[in-house]
């Protein structure tokens, strides 16, 4: 099979590129080694659409932060995922911090970021009573928002697919040959040819680049641990809370995620590319730093934890554009604010492909809109009644902690979920305080009946992540 463009990596950038390319009459393949879009670094992201003033405009990541930020309202509207500009406070505890706030503010204004405001201690106390009394001042940025990064990936990929992009999951790239007029990509699921390749392979972008003979940039992994708190803390703080940044890190934050669950983190330490462990030291660091911001938060509120790995290129900036290999375009080293910048990054990649010779002919059939999935939990009482009346499946509870119905799980399976994590990240089933104790069995039954797989074939997230064994296999050889 011959494609115009093969995108290696279905993280937020790969998916955004796929969706951009689906506007044109092109044969595009989006491939990824995981079982779902976004299941690499993107799903472990903090989910923050940064306000625009954080990044140094001397860097690409700093320049694209504000440009990317402005694209999210439209993206969310078209694709139907949740996005809310909840605003952000960067807080100061002393004069050094105050100076940092001033620098940030000036940097933001230079870039054109709107709405930046300094709040005095009294206003901070009034607006966010849970924050520490030792805060002397804060920089308020109304443009900051939150999104579920995996929802963005799913919907970008789904819309791209609806507009003709072919997707292939659990399909890692094994090797790439350079051929006449393009590339021969050998994946686990087969070999495909493409005139152009977009390398959006995250942590492994350097390995993909090496396959075509490119030397660098090296990608290192910087791990961040995050901790999710019980939903009864919803509303404890209303905005994203940042400490004053240091030269190396935005710090440990309080993040009211889109669905209301509070999240604290991340840490930032070098790690191996396969190290997704959470640690006792990481937990201690996060809770100690968060308590400085909001003294009332404690480890006892924690319901779950996870880690993500940032892909960091040497030079600490995005590496985007054409390379020494004709037809091979990269978007590598996408660390923070990679999610925020994704729409802008996708446009940059498409521009680079165009410069490399890809003809872009608009497809009149392109439909930018994707119907949002049913979200029973946040529907109004009338909407809920109407849903149940239309389909009794919406009347059967699957996840009681997050109020997810059988109808929504079946919808998610129809939209492509084939694993427990695929269901979890599409519907939220399993994300609540009981962490799947009630819903997991129901989800397995539904995957079995709706996706036609025997129960032992259901995995947590593809590959070898089996969940149960049939009795014969587990026993002493019955």
């Amino acid at each position, binding site marked *: 099979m011959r494609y115009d463009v093969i995108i290696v990596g279905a993280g937020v950038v790969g998916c955004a590129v796929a969706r951009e390319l689906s506007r044109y009459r092109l044969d595009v393949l989006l491939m990824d080694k995981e079982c779902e879009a976004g299941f690499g670094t993107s799903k472990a992201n903090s989910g923050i659409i940064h306000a625009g003033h954080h990044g140094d405009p001397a860097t690409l990541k700093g320049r694209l932060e504000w440009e990317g930020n402005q694209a999210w309202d439209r993206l969310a509207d078209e694709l139907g995922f949740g996005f809310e500009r909840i605003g952000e406070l960067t807080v100061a505890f002393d004069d050094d911090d105050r100076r940092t706030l001033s620098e940030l503010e000036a940097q933001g204004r230079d870039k054109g970021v709107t709405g930046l405001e300094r709040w005095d201690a009294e206003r901070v106390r009034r607006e966010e009573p849970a924050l520490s009394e030792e805060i002397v001042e804060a920089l308020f940025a109304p443009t900051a928002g939150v999104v579920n990064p995996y929802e963005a990936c799913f919907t970008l990929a789904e819309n791209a697919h609806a507009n003709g992009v072919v997707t292939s999951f659990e399909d890692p790239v094994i090797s790439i040959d350079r051929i006449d007029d393009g590339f021969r990509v050998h994946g686990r699921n087969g070999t495909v040819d493409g005139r152009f390749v977009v390398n959006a392979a995250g942590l492994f972008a350097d390995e993909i680049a090496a396959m075509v003979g490119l030397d660098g940039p090296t990608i290192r992994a910087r791990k961040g641990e995050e901790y999710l708190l019980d939903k009864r803390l919803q509303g404890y703080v209303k905005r994203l809370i940042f400490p004053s940044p240091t030269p190396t890190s935005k710090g440990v934050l309080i993040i009211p995620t889109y669905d209301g669950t509070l999240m604290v983190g991340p840490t930032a330490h070098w790690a191996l590319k396969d190290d997704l462990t959470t640690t006792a030291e990481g937990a201690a660091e996060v809770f100690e730093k968060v308590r400085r911001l909001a003294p009332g938060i404690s480890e006892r509120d924690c319901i779950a934890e996870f880690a993500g790995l940032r892909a960091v290129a040497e030079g600490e900036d995005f590496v985007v554009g054409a390379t020494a290999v004709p037809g091979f375009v990269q978007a590598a080293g996408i660390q923070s604010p990679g999610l925020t910048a994704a729409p802008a990054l996708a446009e940059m990649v498409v521009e680079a492909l165009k410069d490399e010779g890809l003809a872009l002919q608009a497809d009149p059939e392109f439909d930018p809109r994707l119907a949002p999935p049913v979200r029973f939990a946040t529907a109004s009482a009338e909407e809920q009644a109407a849903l149940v009346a239309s389909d009794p499946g919406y009347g059967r509870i699957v996840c009681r902690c997050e109020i997810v119905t059988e109808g929504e799980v079946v919808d998610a399976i129809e939209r492509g979920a084939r694993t427990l994590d695929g269901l979890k990240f599409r519907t939220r089933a399993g994300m609540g305080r009981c962490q799947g104790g009630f819903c997991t069995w129901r989800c397995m039954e539904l995957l079995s009946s709706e996706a036609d797989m025997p129960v032992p074939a259901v995995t947590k997230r593809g590959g070898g992540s089996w969940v149960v064994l049939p009795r*014969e296999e587990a026993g002493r050889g019955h």
Partner: protein
Amino acid sequence: MSENAATETRHYLCTGCPLGCRLEVEALDDEIVEVRGFSCKRGKTFAYQEFTDPRRSVSTTVSVDGGRWARLPVKTAEPIPKPKVQALCDALHEIRLRAPVKMGDVVMQDALGTGIDVVATRDMPVGDASVVGA
């Protein structure tokens, strides 16, 4: 103690109450000589029983087709000799019933020659266990 005697001391944790007395049974040629460590009558009885004829109630499940669930819980009507427990579970593994089943139905008569039946511990109505059990 004579030189030809074979004395052994066996230790048991009493299950009569949370005090968990550590019981000792001293036996000579399989005859109980002395029981020590109990602090009540129940403990002494327990020690004797555990030494001479330890018994266990067995609860497990058997396969059932066409019922609300894929497994039907069953139990031995009375405790059976402890050495037969695993063999009983293995034997019950071979059984495959069909719903409906009523609580108390005999699933295996005279299990492994013990004279004790294995019975269903619930009704299992016909239903849609959407996945047939393993």
